[in-house]
């Protein structure tokens, strides 16, 4: 996917669906960010934030603190709460932030994800549709 492809609407009205864009970044990058990279990266994210806001697809989005701040909770069958330090699994890539976008379909979500700085520079973005529970 080339970056900078302008996201476009579909050719027919569609019921929008919400996707969560999970931004995975190499652990090393978050632990000791290269000062030379921080400025351009912040600027890239600012541009992306502006673009999703202007397109009206932005629902939510945040950056996360590093995995050294993570705590995992798991409740076993007996109701005992198991709280452990750190992320659920040790991996080379960690969840660094997320967006929730409201777009017509997967192609549109992929376009936004490809534009997001999180999918560039060695990172990757996992896309998951949000489950819509029927109301009423």
């Amino acid at each position, binding site marked *: *996917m*080339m970056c900078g*492809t*302008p996201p*476009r609407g*579909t*050719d*027919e*009205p*569609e*019921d929008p*669906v919400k996707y969560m864009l999970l931004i995975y970044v190499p652990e090393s990058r978050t632990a000791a960010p290269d000062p030379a990279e921080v400025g351009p990266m912040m600027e890239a994210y600012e541009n992306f934030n502006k673009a999703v806001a202007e397109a009206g697809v932005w629902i939510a989005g945040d950056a996360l603190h590093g995995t050294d701040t993570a705590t995992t909770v798991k409740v076993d069958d007996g109701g005992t709460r198991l709280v452990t330090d750190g992320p659920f699994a040790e991996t080379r890539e960690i969840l660094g932030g997320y967006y929730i976008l409201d777009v*017509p*379909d*997967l*192609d*549109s979500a*992929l376009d936004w994800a490809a534009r997001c700085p999180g999918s560039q520079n060695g990172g990757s973005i996992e*896309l998951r*549709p949000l489950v*819509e529970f*029927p109301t009423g």
Partner: protein
Amino acid sequence: MPDDGRVVAGVAAVFREEHGRLLATLVRGFGDLDLAEEVAAEAIEAALVTWPRDGVPRRPGAWLLTTARRKAVDRLRRDRNHAARLALLRADAERAEVVAAPAGDDEDVPDERLRLFFACCHPALPMEARTALTLRCLGGMDTPEVARLFLVPTATMAQRIVRAKRKIRDARIPFRVPAAGELADRLPGVLRVLYLVFTEGYAAGTGTGLQRLDLVDEAVRLTRILLRLLPAEREVAGLLALMLLVDARRDARVDGSGRLVLLADQDRGRWDRALIEEGQTLVVRSLTGGDPGPYAVQAAIAALHVEAAGVETTDWPQIVALYDVLARIEPSPAVELNRAVAVAMRDGPTAGLALLDALRDDPRLRGGHLLPAARADLLRRLGRTDEAAAEYRAALETVGNDAERDFLRTRLDEVTPGS
């Protein structure tokens, strides 16, 4: 009143031709692949009952569409949950209209199959599901047929297809044709699916026969449809050209007992002249108007092979030059391997062997039979029979196709006399 056999055969032919179109139009209308499949199948069943009795209607496609649409509407009336789910997908008035208006003539029913191609070949689906879905939705095959073609149990294939359809629905993979600006990004994925179906049939990875011609025929048929839908896309023409120029050699590629016959030993009189001519015309089309794509270049190589009277008179320098182009626009170890074999034909086995040796550490070729088989052949031609024998044995360990295995074993016997 026509006799039943003829009508039933006619129905089968119409079904095969119309199924993809019918399904695509229904998906466009209802936005739901499962519902579209169910009512398409019901319409076909209805046709099997009424057509033998009343005769094939003048516009079979429009008849099937009208029947399927009625069945869909009935079903949605009966099944409120299903209707509610579709309402969620917003089967709005505009969409209902698309389905509700079966035109007077087949020509007026818009061909929506291109959408279906791009949905079935979407990069968000696993490759094995893409080929299966394409054969099922556009080839009009049922799951057991697709399973047979890929030599997997029906239950395995059914699960693969169910999972893929679930992902299309839940992740909202759209039934849409990419815009002009996206096409360059997405079309190669569709071509790759068709190419994989073709190569799986042409050089079957597993099984008893060298070729599985039903897969080859289906790949060619689907690629012809795609070219009709995208006549200006030169790579579609290139892919079809490649398929036809390779397929033209099918009768000469195996002998009477199903054994592999090498290009050098093939009876060129048995090559299909009509396919070659059609392929040559398409090659010109695919190469005209800008930088060629990878399928156009491969088709041009195939054209040079079929245009020669024999292996000795083949234009090997030109073939090497085309592999140079291919290595630049779509580099891969397979391209390097084929290029090395062409260099061996142009400059002699030693030159080819040096290039193959450079590929020995490539992890992408490790575990496959192609590299040892190619090395074995060049070593044999150099008279280094002990080394050739070792490479033939290595190739035999990994080859999956019985006809190729027989060929390698025959060659091994030749270089190890008296063993």
